């Protein structure tokens, strides 16, 4: 209870100057977004079709709203934009420069940036755990900063990789979310960003050790997969994946997966705290319950959208919006699992530890839907076979 602001703890009085300054910053940020969109349109407009232009325009209000609701997102976006554009500029249309240019080779070519992301996530995890172990605020702050830096490198890596794919040939180029390697980067990135959002929202870094552990496991898998299967190679898209739907279906799915991963870690922390383990070092149960609900809410909402988008895409590519393909079926199972969770939350006697266990078990179900299906079951979603 002590961490949660309640009616008895006086909230800071609304500062009079703040809204004005805030509005000023909002406008500046929005202006930067509009400028960026205009620049993109003037520079690359002739290569865009109607969808591209519409999506570009849509991004302005979406990113503006995101930056308004979550202020640290603005510098994040700005740095990613600068680094990604620098990477593109350094390439100058020649893929061979990835090995010749110092900054590309060691910093911001996709492979280098993703390697940096991996390293930074590992160190961030270490810092968070150190902070947890010795109750060091400094270590936790460092973990936070490193997690931000890792996210910047991951996002930069994906954007630069997008550009690199076009260097292989204009017909090869595609958004880097088409194979398991790329989506693992996306998963690490989204999970970390979701966590960082709640870290700021609740003003506590104490959950970082748990969440970053999941991210680190994902990164470890990513590296293993990259080393043993040479999965980092950019492959052209098979005809079934050449669709606009991919660009919305896959990211929406990973917001879902990221939310579920975050909820599972909050659930794990809740179970520990409610048994008195690490009780003083982790957030209060009330906060953990809240994080769990928020993460599942955002995950469920996006997962619903993603599954619907997937059905629309399937209708176009395979001729049927639902064919009980193993991946589809497991998406349904994941969805049902969290639908159950949301109903349990409203049922007396099924709350508390039961919800936490369910969220933790949900991660297993989600992982199976994400990886297990590709490993053990055959079906139409054959892009990411292991």
């Amino acid at each position: 209870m002590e961490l949660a602001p309640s009616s008895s703890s006086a909230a800071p009085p609304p500062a009079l100057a703040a809204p004005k300054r805030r509005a000023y910053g909002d406008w500046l940020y929005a202006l930067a977004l509009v400028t960026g969109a205009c620049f993109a349109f003037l520079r690359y407009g002739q290569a865009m079709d109607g969808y591209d232009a519409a999506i570009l325009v849509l991004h302005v209000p979406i990113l503006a709203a995101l930056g308004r609701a979550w202020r640290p997102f603005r510098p994040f976006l700005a740095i990613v934009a600068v680094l990604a554009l620098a990477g593109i500029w350094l390439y100058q249309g020649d893929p061979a420069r990835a090995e010749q240019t110092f900054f590309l080779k060691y910093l911001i070519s996709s492979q280098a940036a993703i390697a940096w992301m991996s390293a930074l996530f590992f160190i961030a995890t270490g810092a968070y755990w150190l902070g947890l172990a010795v109750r060091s605020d400094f270590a936790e702050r460092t973990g936070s900063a490193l997690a931000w830096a890792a996210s910047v490198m991951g996002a930069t890596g994906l954007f630069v990789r997008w550009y690199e794919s076009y260097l292989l040939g204009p017909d090869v180029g595609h958004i880097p979310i088409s194979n398991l390697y790329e989506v693992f980067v996306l998963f690490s990135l989204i999970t970390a960003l979701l966590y960082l959002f709640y870290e700021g929202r609740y003003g506590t870094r104490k959950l970082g050790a748990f969440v970053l552990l999941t991210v680190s496991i994902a990164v470890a898998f990513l590296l293993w997969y990259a080393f043993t299967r040479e999965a980092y190679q950019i492959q052209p898209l098979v005809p079934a994946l050449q669709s606009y739907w991919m660009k919305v279906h896959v990211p929406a799915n990973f917001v879902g997966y990221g939310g579920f991963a975050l909820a599972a870690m909050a659930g794990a922390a809740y179970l520990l705290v409610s048994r008195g383990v690490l009780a003083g070092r982790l957030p209060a149960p009330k906060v953990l319950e809240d994080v769990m609900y928020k993460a599942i809410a955002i995950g469920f909402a996006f997962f619903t959208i993603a599954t619907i988008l997937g059905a629309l895409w399937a209708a176009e590519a395979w001729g049927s919006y639902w064919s009980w393909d193993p991946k589809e079926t497991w998406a349904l199972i994941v969805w049902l699992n969290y639908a159950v969770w949301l109903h349990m939350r409203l049922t007396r006697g099924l709350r508390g530890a039961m919800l936490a266990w369910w969220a933790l078990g949900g991660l297993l179900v989600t992982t199976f839907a994400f990886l297990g299906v590709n490993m053990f079951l055959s079906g139409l979603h054959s892009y990411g076979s292991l």
Partner: protein
Amino acid sequence: MQQGARARVPAVQALLELLSSMRFAISLLTVLAIASIIGTVVQQNEPANAYLNQFGQFWEPVFARMGLYSVYGAGWFVAILAFLVLSTMLCIIRQAAPMLREMRGFHEHAREISLRLFAHYASLVPTLPPEARRSAVTDYLAGTGFRFRIDERADGALIAARQGSAGRIGYFFAHAAIVLICAGGLLDGDLPLALHMYFGGKAPTSGNRPVADIPASARLGPDNWSYRGNVYIPEGGSADFAVLNIDDGVLLQSLPFEVALKRFHIDHYETGMPRRFASDLVLTDAESGQRFERTLEVNKPLTYRGVTLFQSGFDDGGSLLRFTVRDLAPGAHPPYPFSGEVGARIPLETLGYAYTLEITGFRPINVENMAASAPGGGFESFFGFGGGANAQGGKKPRNLGPSYTFKLRDAAGQAREFTNYMLPVEIDGRWYLYSGVRASQMEPFSYLRIPLDGEAGVDAWFAIRQLFFDPARRAALAARFAARNLDGDDGALRARLEEAAGHTLILFADGGFAAISEFIEKSIPEAERERSGAAFLQIIQGLTWDAWMMVREQAGQAALEPGEAHAPFVRDALIALADSGRYGAPFYLQLNAYEQRQATILQATRSPGKPLVYSGALLLALGVFGMLYIRERRLFVLLKNNETLVAMSSNRKTIDLDETFARHRDALAAALGDAAVKH
């Protein structure tokens, strides 16, 4: 009687209550999730004997009865869904009235005592008179998006306000969506067709017969409004029906138009991966005769007259293949031409073979990723290359050229399957012609690798084989071998070598290397075996060399100097000779030329449930967001002479509520100029 009726009403009510209860919903969703898993573990809709292989005699029929081979259409699965729909509908009905009341109501009659029991409430000490406070509060509420109602009381007034009640519509949307989606799914599932078959007296028939022979009982007309079938069209051909696969049989579904295929395209990336599958179609309306052309691609379907066509696959449409038949029997006729179309079954009795040839497939391009000898991979190449664009690794795609598959079926109905490549393939600087063979679909192909002579090409090996296995010419070969090895020596030794060579040839012709080693095991003492094996190998290699030279002489080519340079050919030729004994075909079918004809496979669907499902999906998305993200807040401000009471409630208890309440409380305190907050 009366008593019975009274007892029944509570029973029915209890049942309704159970069905619409939260716990029942939770159980149903869980059961549905678990049931869904089964269909992902057991492969669905496989042919019956695949299950027999997998589960065995005992369990196969048990699982069949449980509907495990088609779980999502099984009665029990549909029953779970039906319960889900029923439970959801009951829930909506039961919740509708109270929820609508809640959405419209303000709870303006809330008693002071209950407000004081709220988790979020604060008491402010007023400095302004009640009237001034009232207008300040209503201004504040209006400015922050609250709607309110005022209840005048003896000791003051209660201003009851609410915000975000629209979120409750989300509940109706999300739950109605489930009903809509299930109903739509039912329309697009197997049920309508099953009913259509039952009432229309239709039954599937065996697919192994010409279309004209399919009886009317297996033909569906335009009155069938829900189906999914395949349309196969070769280039230059057309079709006006789709084939529906039901269990192990087929039904023919007439289409409201005729589709003709002008051309089928496969475009490739540089790496050889397919980039685009497209069919140039001409559609002719069955009623109006109107024609139009359209190109169909993956992800770009076409809907016409309620039927949607998708690019779902491709096949060979009957390519014409021109072969040379190389008879493998020694002393038989020389190679002669032969031709056939893919898909044809050609009895070969007239050619003197007791087989039927079934040409099953043709592929003009076979791109394989051949691992190049470049080092790399793993850690080094992940970091060694800067960008993904450079990371093509050590793999180089290579086109192996056309390949063709066929079966040779003997009189007993047993078939061996062959896959041959038209062009020789280079491996480490030497060239081979590949032919794969297998006795059943379960096995992988084992390959016969025929080496090419630099000058004579593939002819050399076939000529060597003829010579090697020809009893009539065996003696000449053995004599030549003996003469070469023991030139000018005494006759007795040479005669013995000649005899040994002849004997080796007989053994080899009989059963390859296996026959030779069997002979060694049987007739040579153990101590001598190793030496003797080496001697046999030397003899058979020497014989291969001599056979090669004889063949070259006959073809008018110069003799070669024996030496290391020619050793690989001799070795490869010998291995191929040994393998050819197990080839299992009386001839080698060599492709010389082809005229490719492709076919497209389209999927034709009519799904009447689609609008329902799509509108359900839209409602679901809106509903879920509404339920999760529109927060209902109720703010109560009780104005009394000596106190202002602020209380807040919400249907979602999250930490946000604490903050929101604190914000409103402080803002109200500021607006009212109240000096202090007390509790």
